[in-house]
């Protein structure tokens, strides 16, 4: 029997007992449907996170903080007059005691091999933002870094190294500030107010170049370009001693993002050896993604359990089929069909049932996913624009179909082996 005939026979054999095949296909359908939806949710959320990641920071930077010594010992740390703890400039994930990074540290960091450039991270604390003589609203300003991609709804994102003071407003500020719409804001000038170390208030004007979409992370702060950030920092640092002014909570190290993971690990080890803590964007997002991945994994686990149960359904169906077709198998073997071909015939039948169930299940799962997206976009998820809850990756969908077919094949081996081993004489006995 050639391969084409084998497949044809397997297909027509499975269709022959319609009810039984239908029920088995239904069991697989449920598993494949669930698996499609759960993995779709995983893909959707992770894709959203990936989009958001690019608005948190570039992939080629490491945020470096200086490790305060002896933080691991119990009891109070010994006073070190050289230790200059950062005051009032906490940024990022820094928690307990972070030592300030001084210009000397910046020079040290630049020496580490693999480091392309080092920039101190400066944090600015602003008081309010205002349009003309309109109302003043509390605002925090974050600075964009090269490689960062903001999710814009209008205009363009501020140019990092532009000479002008450029800023992007979150969408939620548009109406309160008195703009008539997103596009109306672009090109306008807003006033940022802040208080320096001496307690004197000052203002800086900046041009709105774009409006950002609220994301999962950092969606509520204004995004300033470097020139504006530096200007705000200078204004804020009036009255500070030089040593305080030149100490930073963290620094941003850029590296070549084409290097291998090992090289990156080496670089980070070097930084640790030099006494610095390093955090990549991956680290910051990673923990978030691993929570999502864990949830999706558990959900997928349930779907796989359903599929395994369906696998036993296949075993059952095919065992009945083998039993029912004892005579037919015996006849085919008497007529010269080899055991291997008989095995293939029944295995293919299992794989075909698996394919039917998974193809229909995946198809229905995708349809349901699109339905859920449409339904939720206007209600539950209206506050998270850009989030498509259920998204499908062709590779993942293909993997589901292939996996189910593989499970079906495995389930089919038991009945197929039984058929392959059948003795034609025993099968054809009728006395």
């Amino acid at each position, binding site marked *: *029997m*050639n391969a084409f*005939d084998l497949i044809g*026979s397997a297909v*027509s054999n499975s269709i*022959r007992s319609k009810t039984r095949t239908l029920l088995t296909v239904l069991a697989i359908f449920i598993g494949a449907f669930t698996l499609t939806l759960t993995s779709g949710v995983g893909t959707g959320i992770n894709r959203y996170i990936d989009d958001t990641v690019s608005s948190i920071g570039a992939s080629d930077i490491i945020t470096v903080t200086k490790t305060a010594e002896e933080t691991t010992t119990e009891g109070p740390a010994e006073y070190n007059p050289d230790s200059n703890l950062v005051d009032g400039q906490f940024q990022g994930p820094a928690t307990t005691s972070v030592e300030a990074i001084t210009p000397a540290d910046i020079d040290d960091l630049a020496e580490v091999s693999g480091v392309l450039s080092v920039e101190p991270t400066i944090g600015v604390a602003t008081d309010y933002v205002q349009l003309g003589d309109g109302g003043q609203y509390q605002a925090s300003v974050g600075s964009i870094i090269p490689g960062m991609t903001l999710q814009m709804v209008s205009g363009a994102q501020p140019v990092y190294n532009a000479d002008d003071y450029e800023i992007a407003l979150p969408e939620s500020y548009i109406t309160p500030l008195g703009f008539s719409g997103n596009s109306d804001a672009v090109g306008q000038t807003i006033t940022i107010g802040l208080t320096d170390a001496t307690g004197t208030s000052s203002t800086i004007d900046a041009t709105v170049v774009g409006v950002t979409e609220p994301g999962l992370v950092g969606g509520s702060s204004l995004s300033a370009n470097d020139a504006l950030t530096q200007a705000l920092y200078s204004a804020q640092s009036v009255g500070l001693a030089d040593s305080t002014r030149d100490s930073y909570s963290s620094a941003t190290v850029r590296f070549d993002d084409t290097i291998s993971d090992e090289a990156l690990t080496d670089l980070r080890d070097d930084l640790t050896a030099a006494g610095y803590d390093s955090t990549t964007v991956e680290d910051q997002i990673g923990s978030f993604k691993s929570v999502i991945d864990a949830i999706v994994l558990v959900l997928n686990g349930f779907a796989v359990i359903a599929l395994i149960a369906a696998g036993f359904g296949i075993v059952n169906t095919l065992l009945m089929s083998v039993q029912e077709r004892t*005579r*037919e198998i*015996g*006849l*085919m073997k*008497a*007529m*010269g*069909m*080899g055991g291997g*071909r008989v095995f293939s015939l029944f295995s293919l039948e299992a794989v075909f049932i698996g394919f039917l169930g998974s193809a229909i299940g995946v198809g229905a799962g995708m349809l349901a996913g699109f339905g859920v997206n449409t339904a939720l976009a206007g209600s539950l998820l209206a506050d998270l624009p850009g989030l498509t809850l259920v998204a499908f990756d062709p590779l993942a969908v293909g993997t589901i179909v292939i996996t189910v077919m593989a499970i079906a094949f495995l389930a089919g081996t038991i009945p197929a082996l039984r058929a392959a081993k059948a003795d*034609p*004489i025993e099968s*054809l006995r*009728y*006395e």
Partner: protein
Amino acid sequence: MSVPVLAARDIHKSYGRGPTRFEALKGVSIDIHSGETIAIVGKSGSGKSTLMHLLALLDKPSKGEVELSGRDAAALSGSALNKTRNETFGFVFQQFFLTPGTSVLDNVTLPLRIAGVRGAERRRRGMAALEQLELADKAKNKATDLSGGQKQRVVIARALVNNPSVIFADEPTGNLDSATGAVVEDILFNLNRTHGITVIIVTHDEELAARCDRRVYIRDGLVVESLAAPTGVAPGASTSTSIASSSAGTTTSTSEASA
């Protein structure tokens, strides 16, 4: 004398071991020549079916050897055995063994499908076999919707489709009434006459056996008697035309229906 197409050389066959050991054949030798019709006659449990299974290479003897055109069949590999059964032998069973729910044509072309013959060629040969048995108009019918006689004709078409040189018929008329049984018998003997196909019939029906060139009686695993046809045509002579034609109209008595 020509080399027999099939031969048994002192074959023994036993099942089980120890106290439950049962010896179905206790040393049977038989030569079957090309173009012969031979009846293996015996009661239930006599060992006649076992002998047929061994001759049809469906099973291996415990002792002794089965020769296929003078060569020991035990030397054949599994796939060569399968090929031989597929291309050289045709099988006709009392219980028909038609695949339910599939068409008559699909049933007839099963051996071709197993042999890997392609679709169009398969269809052509299947239809040719059905035409030979005047069943061409039933090709698309479901096999299970036919009458007993039609079913047995489909089975014969299936046995013929590969142009075999030997047809094994196990109680071919056992499930048929005497009139349709006679028609089926005529077809088998006619095939022998016109195509020179060797026909080996296993039966306990004396009248059917009497139409064959030779009758071999089996009892308790041994050949007890071997008779040539009443007219005295020598075994191995393929000129059986006279017997077949003379006896064609005589089988009017009731055939025993087996259990």
